[in-house]
C-alpha cells in the first residue's frame, strides 16, 4: 500500500540518521525534558551530519535532497518520542521562507548557517491576543531610511530560546488593509532590544524551548525584509501547505509508534489468567485504531506525493491536518485506556506522547480554523 518511493540514497540517509538519534539524542532526552530545552550543540551536530535543511542545494552546503528527506527526519524524530529538537520546524517551516523570499544576499549570508546548525531559526507570528487571526496582529514594523524599527510581542514561539534568527511577521501601522499590512523580516537574536522570555511551562513538548519574544524599538537593516513590503500575508499563505503537511506526516508516525508500543505491551501484560492482548475488546480497539492509522498513512503519502509534484492540495492538506492531529490525540487517549495503570506513569512512553501530541490540533492553525478554511473553499 505504499505510494512514496524511497531511493537507496534516501535509505542510507535514514540509516545514518537512526544511528545519530540512537547515539546523540535518545540518551539525552530525559535531561533535556528537565532542562526545558536541548543544547545548541546537538543542533550543530545535526548540521554537521547534514540532517538540517536537507532539501537545500550544495551551494548552501545542503545535500540537494527532496521532501522525502524531510519525511525521514520527521519519522526518526517521532521515533525518539520527544519534541525538543524540532528540526522540522527549522528545516521545513522556517528556512523555506528565506529560501523562497530572501534576496540573494540574505540567502548567501544565512542559508549556509542554517544548514550547518550554526543558526537555529524560529517563526514569530502568533501574538498573545491574535492566535489564528492574523488581522488582529499588533506588532509593528516601521521602515525608516535603511532601517526598520520593530515593536511588539510574540508568543508560543517554538525554538524561541535557542533561536539565532527569527522570521518575524509585523504590520505597517499606516496600512489599514490587514491583508496588505504584514511584512516578513529576518531578525537576528543578537539584535539589541530583542528579548527572549523563559521557556514556557507546558503540558508537553517539555524539552522544546517554546517562549515569548519581545521587541522594543528593535532596529534591523531594511534589507532584512523578505520579499515585497506588505506581501507577508501572501507569503504566509503560500507556505501553509508545507507547514500543515509536516504536521500530518508527524501525526501519522506518532500514531503508528503508539500502536506498535501498545500492542507489544499488551502482548506481555498478564491480567489474571490471560494476557491483555487476548481481550476481544482490546483487540477490536487496536484494529479500529490500526485501520484509521493505515488510512491516514495512505492519505498522508498521497498528500506528500502531490506536494512534491507542486500541486495545490491545500484543502486536502487542511483536511489531513485536522483529521490526523485529532486522530493522534484519540489514539493516545485510547491506548492509555488499554494500557491502564501503567499509562498513569511517565515511565510509560505513551504518557509523554499523549502530552506531546495534544498541541498538534492547536498549533499551525487550530483544527477549528482548518474546518473554517475547508468550509469556505468547498461550501461557497
Amino acid at each position: 500500500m505504499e505510494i512514496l518511493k524511497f531511493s537507496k540514497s534516501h535509505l542510507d540517509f535514514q540509516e545514518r540518521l537512526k544511528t545519530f538519534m540512537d547515539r546523540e539524542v535518545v540518551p539525552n532526552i530525559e535531561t533535556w525534558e528537565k532542562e526545558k530545552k536541548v543544547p545548541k550543540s546537538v543542533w550543530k551536530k545535526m548540521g554537521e551530519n547534514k540532517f538540517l535543511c536537507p532539501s537545500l542545494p550544495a551551494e548552501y552546503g545542503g545535500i540537494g535532497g527532496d521532501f522525502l528527506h524531510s519525511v525521514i527526519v520527521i519519522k526518526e524524530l517521532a521515533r525518539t518520542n520527544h519534541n525538543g529538537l524540532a528540526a522540522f520546524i527549522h528545516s521545513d517551516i522556517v528556512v523555506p521562507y528565506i529560501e523562497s523570499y530572501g534576496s540573494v544576499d540574505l540567502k548567501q549570508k544565512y542559508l549556509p548557517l542554517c544548514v550547518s546548525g550554526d543558526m537555529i531559526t524560529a517563526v514569530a507570528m502568533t501574538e498573545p491576543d491574535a492566535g489564528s487571526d492574523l488581522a488582529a496582529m499588533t506588532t509593528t514594523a516601521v521602515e525608516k531610511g535603511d532601517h526598520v524599527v520593530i515593536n511588539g510581542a510574540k508568543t508560543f514561539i517554538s525554538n524561541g530560546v535557542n533561536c539565532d534568527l527569527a522570521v518575524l511577521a509585523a504590520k505597517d501601522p499606516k496600512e489599514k488593509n490587514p491583508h496588505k499590512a504584514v511584512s516578513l523580516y529576518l531578525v537576528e537574536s543578537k539584535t539589541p532590544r530583542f528579548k527572549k522570555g523563559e521557556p514556557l511551562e507546558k503540558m508537553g513538548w517539555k524539552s522544546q524551548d517554546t517562549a515569548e519574544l519581545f521587541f522594543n524599538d528593535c532596529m534591523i537593516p531594511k534589507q532584512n525584509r523578505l520579499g515585497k513590503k506588505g506581501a507577508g500575508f501572501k507569503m504566509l499563505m503560500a507556505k501553509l501547505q508545507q507547514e500543515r503537511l509536516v504536521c500530518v506526516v508527524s501525526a501519522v508516525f506518532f500514531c503508528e509508534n503508539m500502536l506498535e508500543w501498545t500492542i507489544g505491551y499488551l502482548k506481555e501484560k498478564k491480567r489474571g489468567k490471560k494476557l491483555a492482548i487476548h481481550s476481544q475488546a482490546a483487540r477490536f480497539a487496536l484494529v479500529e485504531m490500526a485501520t484509521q492509522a493505515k488510512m491516514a498513512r495512505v492519505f498522508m503519502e498521497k498528500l506528500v506525493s502531490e506536494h512534491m509534484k507542486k500541486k495545490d492540495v491545500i484543502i486536502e492538506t487542511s483536511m489531513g491536518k485536522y483529521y490526523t492531529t485529532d486522530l493522534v490525540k484519540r489514539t493516545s487517549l485510547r491506548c492509555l485506556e488499554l494500557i491502564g495503570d501503567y499509562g498513569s506513569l511517565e515511565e510509560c512512553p505513551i504518557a509523554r506522547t499523549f502530552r506531546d501530541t495534544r498541541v498538534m490540533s492547536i498549533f499551525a492553525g487550530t483544527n477549528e480554523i482548518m474546518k473554517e478554511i475547508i468550509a469556505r473553499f468547498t461550501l461557497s
Partner: protein
Amino acid sequence: MDFDLKGSQKEIQKAAREFAKGEFDKDLAANLDKEENFPEALWKKAARLGLVGLHLDGAGLSLVDQVLVAEQFCAVDSSLGSSILSACRGAECLYLSGDASLKETFLERVLEGQILSTCAFAEPGGDPDLSDITTTAIQRDKMLTLNGKKEYVVNGVLAGCFIVLCRVLSEDGSGAEPCLVLVEKKTKGVLIKPKTEKLGCRMIPVADMEFCDVAVPLSNMVGKPGTGLVQAKNFLSIEQVSKAAMVLGMALGALQRSLAHTRLRKQFNQAIAAFEVTRHKFADMAMRIRMARLLTLEAAFDIDRNMIRGKHDETLAAMALFQAAKTAVHVTDESVQLLGGYGYMAEYEVERFYRDAKSIEITQPAGLHLKEIVAKKLIGKIRAA
C-alpha cells in the same frame, strides 16, 4: 422520586465550595503538581472542619454528601481537591466492618486528619476482579503473618495504615478465605516502593508494596475471614462513586474556565463563545456533565440506602465512574482546545485538570473492567454451548 437537594445537602455543598474557594491557591497547586507533593496543611485544615470523610460521620453512610463535596473541591482545583478527598481512602471499610477498637484507634485518627489511610488490594498481573489474590495471612495464636505483593497502592508512602486484602490460612495451610487486614505502616516487613513521575493526580502518591513476614495482631482483621472479597467490592463501589464525583468536579471546573475564557477572548472580531460551534460544544459538555452527575448521585443514593443490607446495585457505581470519567476527559480535553495555545500552558490550569481526569480514568477500577461489571449483571449467565 425527587430531584431537588435537601436543605442540609445544599449547606454542605456551600461549605465545601467556600472552603475550596478560600483555601485553594493557584500557585500552590501548580507547585505541588510540579514537585509531586501532597497538600498536607490543607488536608489537616479540611479535616478539622469535618470535610474529610464527612460521609462517615453520621448514623449511616451519606455518600451523597461526599459526592457534593468532591464536586465542589475538584471544580475549584482538580489536584488539590482529589488529593484531599483521597486522604481517608478505605476508611469506609473500618466504618462499615471494623470493630469498636479499630474504629477508635484508626478511623478517628483518619477523620481527624492525623493519619492517611488506604487500601491495598490489587496484585501484579492479577485479575481486575480480585478473584486470584495470592497475599496470605497465616494465623497463629493471636497473630497474623502477612506475605505478598500489592501494586499501585494509592497514598503509598504517606498512609499510616493499609487495609490489605489477603487470604487467611491456618498454620496447616487450610482455609485461604479472603479477608481484610489492617496493617500499620510502621510494622516491620512492610516495604514501600514509591512510583514517582505520574502523568496526573501528581499530589496523590502511589507505590508498590511488599509484605515480608509482617506480623499484625488478629484484632486487626476488618470483618471476619470470608468477607474480604465482598467488603473489597463494597469499598470499590464507594470508591467508584467518589472518583466519579471527583472527575465530575474537574469537568465542571474546566467548563467554568473555558466558558470564562471564550466569553472574553475574541477571534475575527467576535467572542469565541459567540461562534455556533463553540456554543454547541458547551451545550454538549453541559448535557454530558448533567447526565453523568445524575448517574453518580443515583449510585451514591443507592449505596447510602441499600449497601448496609447488601441490596445495592453494584452496576450503578461502575456506570457512574465509567461515564463520569469519559465525560471529564472529554470536557477537559475540549477545554484545552477552547483555550487554544493557552490551554496547553500550565498557567491556565486546564491541562492539569485534563491530566488529572485522564489519570483517574485509566487507573483501576477502570474501563473494560467497569463495563464487564455492568454486562455481567445485565446479560446474566448464558447456558453453555
